[in-house]
């Protein structure tokens, strides 16, 4: 089982808490993530560690929403943009292997949803 999702999940939690505090604090209810196929990050392992690392934090019980970003390549021969399947990176239009990556590398926290009551607001 890949282990690097543990430090990645801790980084995610730290990042979310920092942004929540900057916005006045409160309970984090949802996190919206973008995960590219090339990021090497496996969602279900992040989810597995998430429930452990968030215990006792303002993000405990928060839901992770993963938006999967497909690997997208561009053919340098005919200009077609395509999503390669598995280990076949050849252009789906002209079969050229002269191709390059255009999307699918990101691993981003896009936004968080906060629940704040009046007392958290005044503390913030």
């Amino acid at each position, binding site marked *: 089982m*890949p*282990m*690097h999702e543990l*430090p*990645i999940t801790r*980084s*995610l939690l*730290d*990042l*979310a808490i920092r*942004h*929540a505090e900057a*916005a006045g604090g409160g309970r984090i*209810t949802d996190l919206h*993530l973008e995960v590219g*196929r*090339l*990021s*090497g*990050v496996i969602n279900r392992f992040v989810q597995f560690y998430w429930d452990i690392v968030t215990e006792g934090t303002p993000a405990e019980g928060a839901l992770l929403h993963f938006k999967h970003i497909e*690997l997208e*390549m561009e053919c340098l021969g005919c200009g077609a943009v395509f999503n*390669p399947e*598995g*280990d076949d*990176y050849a252009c789906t239009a002209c079969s050229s*292997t*002269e*191709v*390059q*990556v255009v999307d699918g*590398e*990101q*691993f*981003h*926290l*896009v*936004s*968080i*949803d*906060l*629940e*704040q*009551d009046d007392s958290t*607001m005044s503390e913030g």
Partner: protein
Amino acid sequence: MGKTIPVVEKITKANDQIAAMNRTRFDEHDIFSLNLMASPGAGKTSLIEKSIPLLADRFRLGVIEGDIATSLDADRTEAAGATSVQINAASCHLDAPMVSQGLDQLDLPSLDIIIVENVGNLVCPASWDLGTHLRVLIASVPEGDDKPFKYPAMYRGVDVLVINKIDLLPYVIFDMDRFREGVEALNRGVVTFPLSCQTGEGIGAWVDWVADQTRQTATL
């Protein structure tokens, strides 16, 4: 009351900030730095071991070894003539704070090159920038020609590719064209050095390149 806070940041941002501090430390001391990554047994320590004697007449070398359980690698690179520090990588990869601790243990003004030997792994190290000038991947031919397709993040994210154990090409199933096709799709034009740490073939070109890069870093 609920509200949405936009973030749009890389999740490894905290690591990347420390990586940037490491980079500043390298630059302040005119040190050329490499992050050496590979699967276990691909030849990370062997390449360092073979390179040290060929560089030691011109440059002063330091090695940061990330090893989970032993100091075997640090012992080897120290014996080969490089100041070596062992950092306790209680993980599947090195991260920027670990390298920062390694740098604390080295006398930076007395070094020209620092090689960071990452933990043997083709998945995890790809996500963690250490702040080195360049990232080097060693692929070895017995691993098979399918590795760029199986570990695209790693092949995508490196600046230099060393293909080790080319002396074994006649004996193992490795289609160089298919391998290069995967590499080129993910990382077009990546600098590549086919070599053998066993026979010494190709080591000269690699060492000359490291020497050139070191000189360029020092004069920037």
